[in-house]
């Protein structure tokens, strides 16, 4: 099986879906002539021309709205945000227009659109360029929120997202674009709404998604080597709709859970997951569910401070020790 980067997996997904369906087009800042700020759209302008690979002005609200308007009348836009940090300017469109149109039109107007781009902190980009908005979008009924961790999932999920009849917020990461992984040749999709057990284990469940899957994997390795603890890693892959069954199944097995996420703690994804666990797995719990999140601060520029702000394998290990009563 070929090993390719996350970036190229996304590129393949876009190319294949644009070949498959003439209604699919890509729009965003620098997606065409520049070949993509992070080169996800490399080669697409040559392949599909400027009608379908559309460079926009720096006008996030505007082109998000244009995408939604086009989706209202039957196109299937893929809107790239150079980063999700800039999409705050467009969040009115995403929430008020895309997410609600179907409902307030009484089911008449679906919005089959994908908003995608990298989110969360990269390296030393400071407060305004280092934000994980996963929970913001996951809060909104009408949106689907997808956050793949591997090249395989990235490709399969993006293809599913493009084919979905609903607005999908697709969260990537600057730090993940170079990640490599096996991606089969030929057609496949990964369904939205299904978590993936990335590692089976019996002692504690680590719920994670996107960048924190790597954090959880490192923590799991350390836990196995140093404490003989077998962690189970549940990669959510889709935040909304959330695969609660997968989480509950795992927690029922391990009786313990640590939720790892990149965003801020308050009202975060983990808060929601903890709620589901206390609701559906209460009698399976042998310890409180702990969360490892970004520190509750804007991301600082200084490298050491930034590192301290982000979720780390060490913090996950510490949390696991606490709830396995090992410390």
């Amino acid at each position, binding site marked *: 099986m070929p090993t390719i980067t996350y970036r190229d997996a996304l590129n393949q997904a876009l190319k294949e879906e644009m070949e498959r369906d003439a209604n699919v087009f890509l729009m965003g800042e620098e997606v065409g002539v520049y070949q993509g700020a992070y080169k996800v759209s490399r080669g697409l302008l040559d392949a599909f021309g400027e009608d379908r690979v559309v460079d926009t002005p720096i006008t996030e609200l505007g082109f998000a709205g244009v995408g939604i308007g086009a989706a209202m009348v039957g196109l299937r836009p893929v809107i790239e945000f150079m980063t999700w940090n800039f999409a705050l300017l467009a969040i009115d469109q995403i929430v008020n227009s895309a997410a609600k149109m179907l409902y307030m039109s009484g089911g008449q107007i679906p919005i089959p659109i994908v908003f995608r781009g990298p989110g969360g902190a990269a390296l030393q980009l400071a407060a305004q360029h280092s934000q994980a908005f996963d929970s913001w979008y996951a809060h909104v009924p009408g949106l689907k929120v997808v956050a793949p961790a591997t090249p395989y999932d990235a490709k399969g999920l993006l293809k599913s997202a493009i084919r979905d009849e609903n607005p999908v917020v697709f969260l990537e990461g600057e730090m993940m674009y170079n990640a490599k992984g096996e991606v089969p040749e030929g057609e496949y999709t990964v369904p939205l709404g299904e978590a993936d057990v990335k590692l089976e284990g019996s002692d504690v469940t680590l719920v994670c998604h996107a960048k924190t899957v790597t954090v959880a994997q490192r923590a799991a390795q350390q836990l*196995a*080597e140093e404490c*003989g603890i077998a962690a189970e890693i549940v990669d959510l892959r889709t935040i909304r709709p959330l695969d609660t069954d997968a989480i509950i199944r795992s927690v029922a097995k391990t*009786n313990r859970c640590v939720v790892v996420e990149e965003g801020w703690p308050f009202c975060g994804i983990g808060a929601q997951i903890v709620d589901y666990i206390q609701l559906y797995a209460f*009698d*399976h*719990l*042998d*310890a409180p569910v702990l969360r490892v999140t970004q520190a509750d601060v804007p991301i600082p520029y200084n490298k050491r401070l930034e590192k301290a702000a982000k979720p780390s394998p060490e913090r996950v290990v510490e949390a696991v020790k606490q709830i396995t*009563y090992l410390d």
Partner: protein
Amino acid sequence: MATKVYMEALSPTMEEGRIVKWLKQEEEPVMDGDVLAEVETDKAIMELQARGEGTLRKVFATEGDTVEVGTVIGVIAAADEDIGEILATVGATEGERRADGDVGPERAASGPDTAAPVAVAGPHGAAAGAPMQRGRVKASPLARRLAKERQVDLRVIQGTGPGGRVVRRDVESAVSGPRHVHAPATGAGYEDAPLSQIRKTIANRLSQSIGPVPHFFLTSEIDMERTAEARDELNNVPDAPRISYNDIIIKVVAQALRQHPECNAWWQDNYIRYFNEVHISVAVSVEEGLITPVLRNAHLKSLREIAAEGRELAQRARERKLKPEEYTGGTFSISNLGMFDVDQFTAVINPPEAGILAVGSVADRPVAVEGTMTVRKRMRVTMSCDHRVIDGATGARFLQTVKRMLENPLAIVW
């Protein structure tokens, strides 16, 4: 009027009892005061007397079962009386177990003088080894569920979680009803032995006294002259791997453990696993700390094999290349700090193993031999024992064997 037969607290510290023998069988007539059964308590074998008259209509525990105090184990009633309701409830809920202040109708009817069975939550129970918690018990939801399923009173369990929270492991170690006695198993390399009541009491009391693994220590000074000579001779053999004192100690300990299997065991909460095979965990210091690669089947290996394999494991341990199965599964540990000129030290047990031998340096020391002061190569070893598994005399006998073998290395091949 039907009378329930409870497992009674037949000693002040008894929490559960084992039915040694039923002296009355089902459908046999029973008089008040008749001995119904022999019960092994934590102290002795006692008699359980009938507290009602009629027929022993039903028993719920069979011989050999261990049941918690307060559990209904039988029903005495008139031969034609309908006991369907009791049958339906017993065993299904913990409601049938006496709890603090729970005065059942039959007890009220039989009057205060009809000594009700001492409940686990009674004053004696509270005074016993496992102190009764007052008020709300802090327990994890899972522990609560397990306790309910297994009919354990959470209040008598000592929680080991934060703030004394009762967690799953506490319930599991507290549990030993008929449903949870670990069925004695005999695997290829070990044999499981159920805990006798006295063994359990020792374990409980000592754990409370000193911590989850109640250690005690035995020290012995060993004359190493003959071992030193033997080692020198072995190391003079051309092209042979170099043999260290530690290699010889491993070999000797492995041999001695075969002779003293009671020290080659794991504490398993509900039972003790005695191993037929000897797997020695050898403490190796590495950059980040300590790891214990396991020399498997050390009792079957020659000194040369032990030397070669031990060195190889230690090397890979320092490179952090050990696989998990290479540093788990040991049955006894050896820690040697002799190379650091440590005369003597105590080592911490590596659970679930029950013993570890701490080995000091081999040093020339003045010693009286047959009334004359002379200088001999001497070595001090200290064995840490888990008292739940190994008693003082047991450990001492093992240590004596080790000492004798090292003082007369020929015994290795004996």
